């Protein structure tokens, strides 16, 4: 295998993507709070969305938790609490498969209504389309990987997972990905690309999931002073108020 390409794919590219992901979100939050929304299309079409959207979202939340388990938690930890490899394997495949099927069926429903409901299609941006493509490929490859585990020999917890964590330790081990099966490699690359796209898509809404709602009082008061309102700007640095257009 070409050493340079491997080095790029499993070492340089992840760090570029990570940088874009972090700085991109910071930039977007600073300059485009107004554009920070999921841009719901439920008003245009509700019948398919009603089942497809919760299916996709709850599915992908489960998939996310699965990835936290699989990629984030070292094998040694699960071994230490007495989870046998067989047990882990069974859990990962069964729950992973259910969550994956939910996600992909929901996703197909959502893409279908996006493509074939004229109003929804009309509200779809180029960035949306690119994002859907990457998201779809990532989900499909991920589901394939889960399925391959039923018969496959490859234990990702001894390869992909360690590589994934090594990125965040700043002690990367790209060689671990070189040895991974192709479908795992493709899943990882498309996912990394998706993370680089993330801040520039509607996916940003993930990071403003309103979990604080459970804890706050129902009725909120704010003084005029707490925000700009129609007040004059204070002396000093001018606020940059040119909101980038979305389309």
């Amino acid at each position, binding site marked *: 295998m070409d050493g340079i390409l491997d080095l790029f794919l499993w070492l340089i590219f992840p760090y570029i993507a990570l940088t874009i992901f972090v700085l991109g979100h910071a930039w977007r939050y600073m300059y485009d709070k107004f554009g920070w929304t999921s841009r719901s299309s439920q*008003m245009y079409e509700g019948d398919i969305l009603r089942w497809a959207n919760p299916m996709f979202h709850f599915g992908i939340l489960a998939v996310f938790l699965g990835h936290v388990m699989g990629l984030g938690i070292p094998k040694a930890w699960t071994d230490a609490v007495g989870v046998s490899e067989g047990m882990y394997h069974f859990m990962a495949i069964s729950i992973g498969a259910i969550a994956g099927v939910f996600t992909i069926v929901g996703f197909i429903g959502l893409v279908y209504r996006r493509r074939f409901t004229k109003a929804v299609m009309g509200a779809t941006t180029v960035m949306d389309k690119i994002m859907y493509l990457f998201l779809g490929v990532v989900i499909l490859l991920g589901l394939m990987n889960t399925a391959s585990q039923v018969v496959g020999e490859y234990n990702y917890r001894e390869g992909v997972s360690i590589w994934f964590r090594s990125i965040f330790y700043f002690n990367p081990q790209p060689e671990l990905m070189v040895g991974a099966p192709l479908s795992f490699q493709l899943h990882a690359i498309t996912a990394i690309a998706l993370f680089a796209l993330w801040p520039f898509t509607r996916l940003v809404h993930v990071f403003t999931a309103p979990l604080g*709602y459970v804890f706050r009082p129902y009725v*909120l008061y704010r003084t005029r002073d707490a925000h*700009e309102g129609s*007040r*004059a700007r204070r002396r000093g640095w001018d606020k940059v108020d040119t909101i980038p257009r979305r389309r």
Partner: protein
Amino acid sequence: MRVMAQMAMVMNLDKCIGCHTCSVTCKQVWTNKSGAEHIWFNNVETRPGQGYPRTYEDQERWKGGWTLNKRGQLKLKAGGRLKNLATIFAAPYLPGIKDYYEPWTYDYENLTTAPAQQNMPVARPKSLLTGENTKVTGSSNWDDDLAGSVEHGHNDPILRKVSDKIKFEYEQAFMFYLPRICEHCLNPSCVASCPTGAIYKREEDGIVLVDQDRCRGWRQCVTGCPYKKMYFNHKTGKVEKCTFCYPRIEVGQPTICSETCVGRLRYLGLMLYDADRVLEAASTPDEHGLYEAQRSVFLDPNDPEVVREALAAGIPEDWIAAARRSPIWALINTYKVALPLHPEYRTMPMVWYIPPLSPVVDAVSETGEDGERQENLFAAIDRLRIPIEYLAELFTAGDTGPVDIVLRKLAAMRSYMRDINMGWETNESIAESVGMTGQEIKDMYRLLAIAKYEERYVIPPAHYEDAHKLENVATECSLDVDGGPGMGGMDVSFAEHPARGGGTAVPDRPEGVRINLLNWDGTGTPDGLFPDSTDASAPSGSVGGP
């Protein structure tokens, strides 16, 4: 006691002629933009009718507002916090665009580019959502003046409660107009429904606003608002709502809908209320008690104890003085002729209505009897149960008692003043029959019939004028971004009072650069529209009012 000030409105429905000027001017100022076609911060409904969005008052379907749980505590009708979050991916009770209407335009180009042909070319309606030919089947006032009521009238959720026997036959129909804006409630269920916390009630004047930078478009507030006055902008993905024209209110001017109201039926003023007692009042077990419960939350600005507490709470002295002169206080509390819209939603709405007597007068006049005689009117109020029950469903959760009393007061005023205007002997017994004195009737008549601009709109300006003067910069609107509801903001010359023509002339305005017709009161010529040939050095300023 925690005193708070609330900017509030009362509308006198007897004077509404259904001209939609308020809707049009409001639309021009706030929502004349792509993505906001269906958004009418102000709309005028013909009642009986389905309203806008259609059948919004049917809370069994739309789940707006609050309700009491088994322990008698307030909870959102659409469900608690966890249910709200659990249903965030597909809001279950959300009106679709079809419940408003599909926005459209016309293919005007075809009129000029069509080739010579046998038939006249037409401008076909095109959907603004799909770009395709469409059939226009509805809008915000599609059932104006009872249009189509034979077919759709039975869908009116209020009428269904009142009677299933009513016939929409021309000679039997009763009809009136109901202009609606956001209620700027004391216990707003939209604020409570917002998962992000982007909606807030302003501490100073109680105006409910959406922070466009914080709104994430989860749309739970659209469900939460029982009046369906939260609107989702399908282009920006954010929710917009009536702002009570806060940039105007802050400089002491009435809202656009009030300013341009042809019938002069709107009143604006402050109400002081005890914020500590709102929750308790909104939790009143009996729905019929909600009207009185809300009234009991209001504080008398003439009470020294209230004044002391208000000052302690940081309410400025001139605001307390304005609360004393407030026409809202007079109509709600002194004369008790204004009633809240749908108190049973338990949001403590702050745009109140004087119910219309005219359907009753019309009914009497049609029989050939004297429609202004007190006995005839009182008898008609007793007899015309369907209109009165209908009004009660709107304003008092179905309790006909308060509506009866208000209509009797209006009827008594009519008869009493007729005697004076005709030069006949005044009959004090008319006033006594509704528990008022002749002088009180005359005062109420003055407020309802001939009150001038300054009496109808008592709006103390916000207390930061000085900051503006110090830095001499234009007043800007934070919502003034592309696609935001501001869209252009307020011109600084807006700060001038158009009716009084008071204030100082706006300095340093280069002549002929900007023309603000909104600021023009119709007398003289608006500044900058025509080049000033006589004295080019004269400072340009607002045109003096009457």
